[in-house]
């Protein structure tokens, strides 16, 4: 994306934004950030399959619709959304079509967690987030991050103060109403030193429809802090979902994430993790379960920028019917990041003749005293396991479904929020047709 071409789609898009008018009442550094992002867009263009990072994900159909930004979201009744809420007590933050809905949100906490929306960013929240907001997710080379940043006036900032451990999960619910609109939700999570938190980001559709979500989440994990991040994408079957996630892990901090891509016609998830401090660790797992003509693309980049870092990654794809799974996982070990220990595994299951999988695990290593390994497989269900189950009286189809479920179950088991895990298990059971 180095060529400087003024993209006509982006031109029209920005034109339409200008007509909608600018929001007022925002802090000055936000205005500056947005202006920078807007001017950067002028020298970017939408990626095509000729760009290496997008060669398997054709988003040209996105050009067919100039998704307008959602205006005042029509508030769905609180009751109608209850089914998507978690059973456990949570700090719940709800977005509808990319707009933060304080009315649907609710905090069940003693007040140690600091939450504020970008539109009313003031006081302590503003000062605590200034050095992170828009700084972790780099918009220079990514048009979608730039678009999101340019529109950053609604969104949420969460700060977990130092030494605070939040016992209830923070549930961020992004609801798509089903209208032909674009949502640009933005979220920043700052876990200060030795803080602990579990955050659940869930993308759900209220009803079917063609929509676009372009989400950006920034996470800062302070010294010795722990963040557990669960991300569930269950968008409508015709939706476009593009998400960027940038995480910065400080010294001896720990970041865990589980990413589930289940919905959307075309989904793309970019996850960048910088192990910036000595002894930082991360474990990132993912599962894409797709069928029909879905395309799920996961790009991860783990940057070992300090010595003694440790990373673990397990990504799985189950691809059925004419779906297309894409995985690209890069592990970078910078010079002087000695004693790095990185391991990456990618297993892919193709269930039908027309299913397609493109995978590209990559290692880039510039330090010699390191342990790095990656593995990737593409295949079908093990014939011997199938035979074993059949010999125990399972019908072939049941045996197949059971094995498929077990393949995905390994990732689902890593979701530590009980009610969510249960809901996901049920969902996978239905998808793998075990009744």
């Amino acid at each position, binding site marked *: 994306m180095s060529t400087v071409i003024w993209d006509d789609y982006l031109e029209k898009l920005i034109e339409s934004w200008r007509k909608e008018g600018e929001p007022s009442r925002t802090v000055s550094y936000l205005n500056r950030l947005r202006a920078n992002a807007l001017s950067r867009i002028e020298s970017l263009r939408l990626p095509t399959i000729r760009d*290496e990072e997008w060669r398997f994900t054709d988003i040209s159909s996105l050009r067919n619709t100039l998704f307008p930004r959602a205006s005042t979201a029509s508030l769905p009744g609180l009751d109608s959304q209850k089914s998507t809420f978690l059973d456990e007590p949570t700090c719940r933050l709800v977005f509808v079509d990319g707009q933060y809905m304080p009315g649907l949100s609710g905090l069940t906490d003693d007040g140690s967690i600091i939450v504020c929306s970008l539109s009313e960013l003031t006081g302590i929240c503003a000062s605590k987030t200034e050095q992170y907001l828009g700084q972790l997710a780099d918009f220079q080379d990514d048009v979608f991050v730039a678009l999101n940043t340019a529109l950053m006036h609604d969104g949420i900032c969460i700060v977990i103060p130092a030494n605070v451990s939040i016992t209830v999960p923070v549930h961020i619910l992004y609801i798509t109403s089903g209208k032909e609109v674009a949502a640009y939700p933005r979220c920043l999570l700052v876990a200060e030193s030795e803080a602990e938190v579990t955050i659940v980001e869930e993308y759900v559709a209220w009803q079917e429809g063609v929509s676009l979500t372009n989400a950006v989440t920034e996470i800062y994990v302070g010294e010795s802090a722990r963040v557990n991040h669960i991300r569930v994408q269950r968008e409508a079957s015709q939706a476009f979902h593009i998400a960027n996630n940038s995480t910065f892990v400080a010294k001896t901090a720990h970041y865990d994430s589980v990413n589930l891509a289940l919905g959307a016609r075309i989904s793309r998830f970019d996850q960048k993790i910088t192990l910036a401090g000595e002894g930082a660790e991360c474990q990132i797992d993912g599962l894409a379960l797709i069928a029909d003509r879905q395309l799920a693309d996961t790009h991860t980049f783990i940057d070992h920028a300090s010595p003694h870092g440790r990373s673990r990654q397990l990504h799985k794809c189950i691809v059925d019917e004419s779906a297309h799974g894409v995985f690209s996982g890069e592990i970078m070990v910078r*010079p*002087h990041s*000695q004693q790095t220990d990185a391991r990456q595994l990618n297993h*892919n299951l*193709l*269930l*039908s*003749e*027309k*299913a*397609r*999988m*493109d*995978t*590209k*695990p*990559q*290692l*880039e*290593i*510039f*330090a*010699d*005293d*390191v*342990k*790095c*390994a*990656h*593995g*990737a*497989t*593409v*295949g*079908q269900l093990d014939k011997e396991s199938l035979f074993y189950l059949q010999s125990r009286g399972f019908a072939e189809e049941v045996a197949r479904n059971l094995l498929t479920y077990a393949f995905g179950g390994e990732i689902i088991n890593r979701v530590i929020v009980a009610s969510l895990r249960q809901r996901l298990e049920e969902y996978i059971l239905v998808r793998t047709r075990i009744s």
Partner: protein
Amino acid sequence: MSAALQNLVNQPYKHGFVTNIESDIAPKGLNEDIIRLISSKKNEPEWLLTFRLEAYRRWLNMIEPTWQNVKYPKINFQNISYYSAPKPKKKLASMDEVDPELLRTFEKLGIPMHERAALAGVAVDVIFDSVSVATTYKEKLAEVGIIFCSISEAVQRYPELIRQYLGTVVPPGDNYYAALNSAVFTDGSFCFIPKGVKCPMDLSTYFRINTEESGQFERTLIIAEEGASVSYLEGCTAPRFDTNQLHAAVVELIALDDADIKYSTVQNWYAGDENGVGGIYNFVTKRGLAKGRNSRISWTQVETGSAITWKYPSCILRGENSVGEFYSVAVTNHHQQADTGTKMIHIGPNTRSTIVSKGISAGQSNSSYRGLVRITPTARNARNYSQCDSMLIGSQCGAHTFPYIQVQNNSAQVEHEASTSKIGEDQLFYFAQRGIDAEEAVSMIINGFCKEVFQQLPLEFAVEATKLLSFKLEGSVG
């Protein structure tokens, strides 16, 4: 004596015409006139000129690739002379005049005395010697119907074969450097193994290179007909102190039903000095087409030389049950760069491929494995296994792995694994305990690391490759 042999016997006198060749050097630069000149000098048929011109016109419209993980200053293609022996070797009177550095290298590699002289370009009678050797082999080959000659000779003598196969595996517009090669290639090898013939000996360009000056733009074409088999060795294991900048060769292999081609390379072109000055840019397109049922193409390469190695010997597995193999060791030291790997394109059902790649980086060098395994929808029950291991020696080098796996068939089984390691202190300590010094210990560990690949090499190559490696990494540990 056939005309081919007659030609060959006469070859050594070519050096007598050195002055003649020199006066023949075409002006620097590349344009259609130069290509016409090359073609007419070589007395080529009209269709070959058309082939060259078409490639040239496509090349003009191509953009130099930039995706590779190697860096080099922009090449000025107008500053190269496309018709001439790139650098006629000066004849030396005796071994005393040879660069002592070169002699030391020969010593280390254990190359026989007369071969050393030949490689350093000393006495002419020695070359006579090796030609007589080559001649005996040629007679033996001709008895079973094998054609093994230079590609220019083949164009004159077997134009119908060349026309049938040239450019069918690597089309003229395949990539930037292949297009350039197709336009200006001057020489190379041609090898044809007729139906049912098992080649009685390993064929090697080694014998040929002694007698013919190989250009920067070589073109190699090997055809194995039904049931034929051949083992082909390329390159010399001794260093060629050549300062050519760009070496853009094209190698095409074609295996018909039940045919078997094994292509081994030990590449040790000049790599530049310790500071990364000079050295060859080795930008080569190598591709094999396993066209027939049960055919097999196997690439084995030991890449130790060149300032930049950038090539992906590939297999197109079109025939049912065809097999592709790639075994590679790439060693980089000082400022060398390597971006190498393979492509396995599975088209036919039950096709199988194996990739074993070992990269060793030392000094300030960078070595990348880049590979593609593509299983197309027609490749039912295709199977691939890939393994790429890297070893880093020193903290300033880099090792990179970029495998692409593209599967469009659910009956395929594809596995890829990669690891990175270094030589452990405990390993060296263990050797030291047994009275083996660090240098030797490293050499043994590395040979163990590369064993799977060396096992694929013909015996004498394996011995030399082992020596070459320890020589190459000398002084990089400690």
